[in-house]
């Protein structure tokens, strides 16, 4: 599992969005996942508009993501 922390990412353009989706596809083929944390409203709006929001596990903060994924791994 890889967590990409976007807390300090103010915006993402189309190519950045494409790279995120590409990373998701690549990891999905390897039965792995990618999680995002700290997504601000602007980026979240981009995800919603482009309908890619369901592809990622999105957590409000990095701590939440680590805690959730660690718990899931232990379970």
């Amino acid at each position, binding site marked *: 599992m890889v967590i990409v922390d976007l*807390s300090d*990412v103010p915006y*993402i353009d189309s190519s950045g969005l494409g790279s995120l989706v590409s*990373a998701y596809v*690549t990891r999905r083929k390897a039965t792995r996942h990618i999680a995002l944390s700290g997504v601000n409203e602007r980026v979240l709006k981009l995800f919603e508009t482009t309908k890619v929001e369901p592809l990622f596990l999105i957590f409000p903060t990095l701590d939440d*993501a*680590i805690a959730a994924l660690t718990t899931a791994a232990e379970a």
Partner: protein
Amino acid sequence: MVLVFCEPAERSLRGHSSRLHSAPWEHSRAAAFARRESARERSELRPDSVSAVVTSGLSNPVYPRSYNKPGDNNGERRQYDLLIPHRLQIGGVGRSLRRKPSGTYPDDRCLNGLDSATGRAVGAVPSGAYGGRARASTLRLHGPIRSMGGLLAYKSPAPYNLPMPAEPFEIERLSAQEGPRVLCLRGPLTLENLPQFQNAIRREENVPW
């Protein structure tokens, strides 16, 4: 909103119109038609658009020319000033209000305006007074137009394709021996720093867990 513009030689602005009287033309059919068109155009104005007609550029001291006045049976050529109506508009294709004069006439009389409400440029569609074949030429300008001393001057538009300012982009890898790996991104994820992000993702893919 009615914008009426005139050339430097026609500075006599009165209200919304510029008018230099030319007695032979004042009562001509061409002038009457132009006035009707002007009134009709003004009645169709909308706040979100600019459509203005200059129907009273009667004098042209810079380029005086001789034309046969319609209705002159004797064919005598007289010295008349041209009636130059301009139709200013935003968008669309301008149509000629009048017919282009049979003689050559400097098209550089095209004047241009700006919708003060929207800031968009308007183009001028010059057309001549009468005679000749119907023809209109449309001049489109894209950019602001400033008023300079009662006249309107075209200002070259600023380049629209300036490069985006480069912002720093950093990727910090936070990972422990166990648990999920974390990539902290700092800066906008754009095309410029895409390879950096892709390399970081590929490095994580090579990790067996």
